[in-house]
């Protein structure tokens, strides 16, 4: 190092140069932060967005008003709102801690003999076989879906039919006409528990098509949820609707000490002020679902069933569901492997928005390449 160079190395950088370097470093950090893409979770069927602030405000207001006392154990206001919405008497509506709790309570109340059986198409919602075990009854999963599959398994021990429409995970529905045919064919002792937690997403028939059967078939109970299209899974609120003379049974389904007051407040506010948002959300899902199904059908290796839910149920030739789910997970797209849902060859992928659909399709193409 030369004499002058030795001293020149002690020259500090001018402020402009320091600031330019800081800007470069900040830009580099920003670029790196933006290049990180968070994984997208399409493995669950709940709504991915936060609840509307109005709902959160209503819950907060209720919490501040005082949680030190029981206010409305029978959820009268919420039941009244639901009854008005569906055009039924308030006595034929019961509110519970989610549709799952009501379904489980219904199975417990209805199956009181050890030989009683609960028939359900399979694959379907994993809770149905479990809720048969609680009253020491038997679950009878029937391969396939629809009225014929169910009727083929009904015998003298059948007490309950649990039917998910749209079905989780296949996305199929039982049209009202087919449901009517099944109800007419079923023996008098059999009660049909129709789980319509995902019914909002269906565009195959009017939302309340099945409810119109309630007056004709008192052995039909319909279950709805605020956990899916309404995006309030954390509140754990669901409700059941019954036909004439179903009031005593519906009373047995309600939680003994009523539904959480905060949950009631949130569900009530959602019904009163966010209905239009849910409609827009549902329309968006229907549009994206149609596009996704069309895209999937255009791929040779993919087999997908028609879906009326907020997800698609598909399999890819030459690769099982677990491996496909693993490959998609490596691409940052999380889906539910079919192994735990009743068909190891398939996967279940939720439908969110256009960006999620595009990303899922890109990941799927990569996984199948």
């Amino acid at each position: 190092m030369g004499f002058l160079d030795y001293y020149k190395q002690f020259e500090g950088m001018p402020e402009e140069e320091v600031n330019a370097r800081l800007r470069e470093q900040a830009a580099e950090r920003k670029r790196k932060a933006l290049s990180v893409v968070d994984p997208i979770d399409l493995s669950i069927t709940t709504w991915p967005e936060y609840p509307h602030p109005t709902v959160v405000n209503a819950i907060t207001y209720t919490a501040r008003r005082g949680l030190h006392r029981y206010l409305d154990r029978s959820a009268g206001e919420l039941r009244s709102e639901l009854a008005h919405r569906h055009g039924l008497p308030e006595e034929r509506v019961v509110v519970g801690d989610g549709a799952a709790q009501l379904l489980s309570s219904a199975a417990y109340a209805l199956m009181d003999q050890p030989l009683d059986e609960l028939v359900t198409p399979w694959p379907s919602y994993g809770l149905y076989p479990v809720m048969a075990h609680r009253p020491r009854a038997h679950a009878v999963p029937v391969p396939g879906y629809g009225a014929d599959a169910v009727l083929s398994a009904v015998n003298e021990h059948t007490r309950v039919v649990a039917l998910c429409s749209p079905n989780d995970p296949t996305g199929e529905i039982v049209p009202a006409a087919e449901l009517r045919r099944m109800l007419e064919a079923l023996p008098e002792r059999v009660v049909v528990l129709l789980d319509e937690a995902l019914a909002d997403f269906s565009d195959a028939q009017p939302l309340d098509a099945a409810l119109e059967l309630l007056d004709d078939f008192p052995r039909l109970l319909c279950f709805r949820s605020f956990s899916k299209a309404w995006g309030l899974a954390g509140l754990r609120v669901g409700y059941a609707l019954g036909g004439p003379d179903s009031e005593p049974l519906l009373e047995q389904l309600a939680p003994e000490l009523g539904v959480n007051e905060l949950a009631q407040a949130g569900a009530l506010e959602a019904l009163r002020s966010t209905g239009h948002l849910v409609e827009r959300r549902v329309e968006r899902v229907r549009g994206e679902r149609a596009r996704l199904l069309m895209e999937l059908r255009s791929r040779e290796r993919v087999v997908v069933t028609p879906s009326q839910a907020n997800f698609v149920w598909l399999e890819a030739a030459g690769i099982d569901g677990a491996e496909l789910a693993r490959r998609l997970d490596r691409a940052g797209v999380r889906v539910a492997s079919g192994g735990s849902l009743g068909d190891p060859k398939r996967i279940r992928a939720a439908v969110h928005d256009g960006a999620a659909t595009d990303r899922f399709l890109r990941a799927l193409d990569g996984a199948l390449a």
Partner: protein
Amino acid sequence: MPRTDPTDNGGLFVGRRPGTAPVKYRALPKRGTRRRQRVDNGASVAILALMVFVCLLFFGPIPVAWLWIASRVQYGLDSVSLAIFVGFFGMLMTLLLGLRVLRRLDLTWILVRRAAGVDQREGVMTRVFAYSAVLAAILFSGWLLLFAGLGPTLAPGQ
């Protein structure tokens, strides 16, 4: 003047008091041996002395030199105006040149101080100039009172 505006600092708000930031080097300097650092320390003292000397020139020798040159101009060209112009213009230019030299010396002093192992962030030119002015004023007062004398003013006719 150091700035703390985030738009001037890569979007980062500099919470530090202006002017107190550590020196940032392009590459970490390689310091010399302890012997060399001692030599650099001595060199920095010499540069400081040189700066004091240059500053002192501003308060005596340079004005006197240009007064002498102006008198030579007046004598040679028989023009008072031209002599005054030359004297003032020359003195001004010399002072500006001196300040430039002083600034160069100051920057060199900073580098040599850093090479000597001191975390030298600011120069010393302003302080040297101020102290030199005080020193020049003291020297001038001493000269005036002790050597030139105030006699003609205080005791006219002597």
